[in-house]
């Protein structure tokens, strides 16, 4: 049998439809408290996985396990073709080059300026020439609309601006997967929508696969039901998503460490599960 072309793992993973994150029967407990119980899901390249659940249900823990900040007790975890549950902290550093994480409250380094925060990885952990790193920092800050704040300290920014700087920091090194941990929690609806639009733009224009952890239903549905597109003049517009696009955003609902729902926005809305109905009401 002739095989005309051979794809590398990287090429396969960069294709749309390829699985970039896979959880298989993942379990985690802190002492007696079970945090995650048999969690299994797959994130497809270019898609969005929205993880919903009440506070303390284990949502953020999933993101920390993906980035290797926490270790699962059992189960198999694949990220970008690497089985991360078997990797050491040093080996995880390579996997993290393609992962960006936006932490709850931003987790900006408060002793560094916005420029230094956004360019942290480029300045400290890469061989990129300093001028090029400066240009990239200015570019991503312009992208999130905070170019004028480049020399400010994080303490001088509002909550929404801090989240947007955190997004800029996570996207500065062009990762293919972005993980959002309660990126809009505590923000007013207008600022939250601005952050949601950044998530949509990164997904649809930069083709970043994303996992959005939230308990803000309004933001979860906004991200799932909208898409970004460029008009003829190159301006970016956020418009209601097509049915196909809407199906690329999949919801997971977690209750006390267990997945109680998995499906798209329509299936979530029409679910008859009493817990889900209470959550949605």
């Amino acid at each position: 049998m002739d095989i005309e072309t051979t794809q590398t793992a990287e090429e396969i993973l960069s294709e749309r439809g390829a699985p970039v994150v896979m959880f298989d029967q993942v379990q985690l407990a802190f002492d007696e408290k079970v945090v995650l119980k048999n969690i299994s899901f797959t994130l497809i390249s270019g898609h969005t996985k929205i993880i919903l659940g009440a506070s303390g249900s284990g949502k953020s823990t999933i993101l920390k396990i993906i980035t290797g900040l926490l270790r699962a007790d059992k189960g198999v975890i694949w990220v970008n073709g690497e089985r991360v549950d078997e990797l050491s902290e040093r080996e995880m550093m390579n996997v993290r080059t393609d992962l960006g994480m936006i932490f709850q409250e931003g987790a900006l380094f408060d002793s560094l300026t916005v420029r230094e925060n956004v360019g942290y990885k480029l300045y400290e952990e890469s061989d990129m020439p300093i001028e090029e790193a400066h240009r990239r920092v200015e570019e991503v800050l312009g992208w999130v609309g905070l170019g004028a704040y480049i020399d400010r300290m994080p303490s001088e920014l509002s909550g929404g601006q801090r989240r947007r700087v955190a997004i800029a920091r996570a996207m500065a090194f062009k990762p293919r997967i972005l993980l959002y941990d309660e990126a809009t929690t505590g923000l007013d609806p207008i600022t939250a929508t601005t952050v949601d639009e950044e998530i949509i733009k990164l997904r649809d224009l930069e083709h970043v696969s994303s996992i959005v952890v939230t308990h803000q239903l309004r933001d979860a549905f906004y991200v799932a039901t909208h898409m970004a597109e460029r008009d003829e003049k190159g301006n970016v517009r956020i418009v209601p998503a097509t049915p196909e696009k809407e199906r690329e955003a999949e919801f997971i609902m977690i209750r006390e460490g267990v997945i109680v729902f998995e499906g798209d926005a329509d299936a979530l809305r029409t679910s008859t599960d009493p817990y889900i109905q209470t959550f949605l009401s």
Partner: protein
Amino acid sequence: MLTFIENWIKSSALEVQEYVLMVRAAVAGIFTPPRYKYDIVEQFDVIGVGSLTVVLLTGFFTGAALALQSGLTLDQFGGRSVVGRLISASMIKELGPVLTALMLTGRVGSGIAAELGSMVVTDQIYALRALGTDPIRKLVVPRLLAGFLMAPVLTIISDFVGIVGGWIVAVFQLQIASGVYWSSVTQALYTQDVWMGLIKPFVLGFVIVTTACHVGLRTKGGTQGVGEATTVAVVTGSVAVIAVDFFVTKILIATMY
């Protein structure tokens, strides 16, 4: 009761294990790349230059008070002229290293625990790791190097200003001739004393910084946790300084004298 003791033993063993692992990783981080040069220079400034004022004041007034006290005692034996000998021996062998270390624990140990503790509770340590940085190399190694190398420098300065403080009291209060004081200072000093005064601060600087880093990185809870970590770092660091000083002194006496 048994469960309480069992839990206490378990948590103590865990703390010791985590401390040893952190120290091992930090020592390995000194000798292997990547190294964060700017952070190392910054910590030398913060720990070394930043502690200068407090060390100068402490050393000076300790020497001066020691001269006043020992002058009174030595008068009873007609030995006022040898006050310099007592001051130099006390400052260089014991008071200089220990008091400098205690001052560093209060100033530097608390600062390190508060800073690292705040970074833990605001997820900045997680953010560092997520951005591909090893927090031990970025945060602990620069502080460890600065504490280890600057503690002896600060101790030497403290010893010197302590002896100067004693000299001022000896000349103006005890009416001892300046020449008599300084010759008395050098007469009492043996090479072993100088070595003891130099070796101790290396060990104490290491203990202060590693204790503070360990406590800071193990902070739990919010701002209350940061406050607790700061207190624990100062209390543990101070007790460790006194205890380690005793054991180092014992070892050095057994090996050098």
